[in-house]
């Protein structure tokens, strides 16, 4: 198609075409301080929703040979405030509450009586580094069944001796590699790694692996999501 027009007409065509690009300006909303936070929250929320859809209950994380393990003394110790919250092992127990048939206090011996799983899996930090560790413990799913948890509830929420707190979606809590971990490298969990009991699962990023567990609650509603999540990190962060 070739047609002859005058330059004034061409200018008006050009202007109209330029104006059609105005939707691009909508991105400027991200530069408005009042809108920025809710927009980014919505964006991260969408990513979390999508992540939950991508999660496959039956899909196992890669396990590694003993020769690929990070040496125990090189396994990084990450705490958010204290390396050792002075847990009294003799009086320690896990307080269970929420949507369960058998709430109450559970001893470490009761957790250790469940079938023991030992796995060499990758531990990935939100910062981007990773290590391969050897973890031993009971499946969280076995523990949830033991306490008569409502497995249709949405979350498992935990609190820790150092005021850290975390939550897991039920699908991840029931994943066969999600452990209530009491051993690392075939030795009892050390204090700096979260003795006597911590969460350990290869399908989540590091900050989900809460240490020094004291309380566990099965719930549909989270008042708080997690220590880092409540400061703006991803609530799901599945790997």
């Amino acid at each position, binding site marked *: *198609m*070739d*047609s*002859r*027009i*005058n*330059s*004034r007409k*061409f200018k008006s*065509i*050009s*202007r109209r*075409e*330029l104006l*059609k*690009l105005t*939707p*691009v300006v909508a*991105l400027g909303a*991200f530069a408005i301080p009042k809108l920025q936070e809710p*927009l*980014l*929250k*919505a*964006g*991260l929320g*969408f*990513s979390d929703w999508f*992540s939950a859809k*991508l*999660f*496959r209950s039956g*899909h196992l*994380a*890669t396990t590694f040979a003993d020769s690929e393990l*990070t040496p125990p003394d*090189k396994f*990084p110790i990450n705490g958010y405030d204290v390396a050792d919250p002075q847990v009294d092992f003799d009086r320690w127990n896990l307080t269970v509450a929420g949507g369960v048939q058998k709430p109450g206090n559970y001893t470490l011996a009761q957790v250790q009586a469940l079938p023991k799983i030992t796995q060499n899996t*990758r531990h*990935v*930090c*939100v*910062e*981007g*580094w*990773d*290590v391969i560790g050897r973890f031993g413990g009971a499946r969280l799913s076995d523990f949830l069944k033991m306490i008569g948890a409502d497995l249709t509830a949405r979350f498992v929420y935990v609190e820790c001796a150092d005021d850290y707190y975390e939550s897991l979606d039920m699908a991840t809590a029931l994943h066969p590699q999600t452990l209530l971990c009491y051993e690392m490298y075939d030795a009892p969990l050390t204090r700096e790694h979260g003795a006597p009991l911590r969460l350990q699962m*290869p*399908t989540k990023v590091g900050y989900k692996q809460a240490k020094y567990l004291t309380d566990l609650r099965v719930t549909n509603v989270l008042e708080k999501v997690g220590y*880092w999540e409540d*400061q*703006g*990190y*991803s609530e799901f962060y*599945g*790997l």
Partner: protein
Amino acid sequence: MSTQALTIEDAKTGEVTEAVYEHPLIVRLCHWVNAVALFVMVGSGLQIFRAFPSFGAKIPQKDLINWPKSFALGGWLGGALQWHLTFVWIYIGTGLLYLAYQVFSGHYKQVLFMPKDVPGVWPMARHYFLFGPKPPAREAYNPLQKHAYTSVIVLGVLSVATGFAVWKPIQFSWLAWMMGGFHLARLWHFLIMWAMLAFVFGHLVMVVLHGWNNFVSMLTGWKKDPEYVAK
């Protein structure tokens, strides 16, 4: 592919110029939205990188590069992740829309580097880099341009693929495996960013060299006085 063309007669002087509609609206929208998204992805990506500015295993952790905070976006790791995981959907969305449009409209013939373009590569490179004679222009993009634009599309796809391997190394374990594992996937993701930045740099230089009409065509769609249209 039929291209719309106009002959413009100057209202005052009566002088005649040609104009060709080079960039359909969807292409222009995708171009500019994606440009903003790429800017945010690079800025926030560099801030994320600052949290562990190295590659491979944690041990020994040596900072490979001390990337300055002023050339990063998001302020802190959590903030940068919010930007990265928000704009990635805009980045992917515009990318997919662009690709779908190119394929279904047939417009890809203007951009896609094909075997028939190979013989034209050397004369064009000689012109750009060795002051050789300028080969005659027959279509909107010369073979080197097509090569650059096709490459950056491939890089865009790879940036998303490597990104998913780093973000979801378990759900997309096959992707991470294809890239040689989690550590290498992270390195590829980083290197692909630099390759894309190299394209952006070259692209901006060429925009400046090729002048105003060329730049305006990505805004209005219309390119005035294109050199490949016979006068």
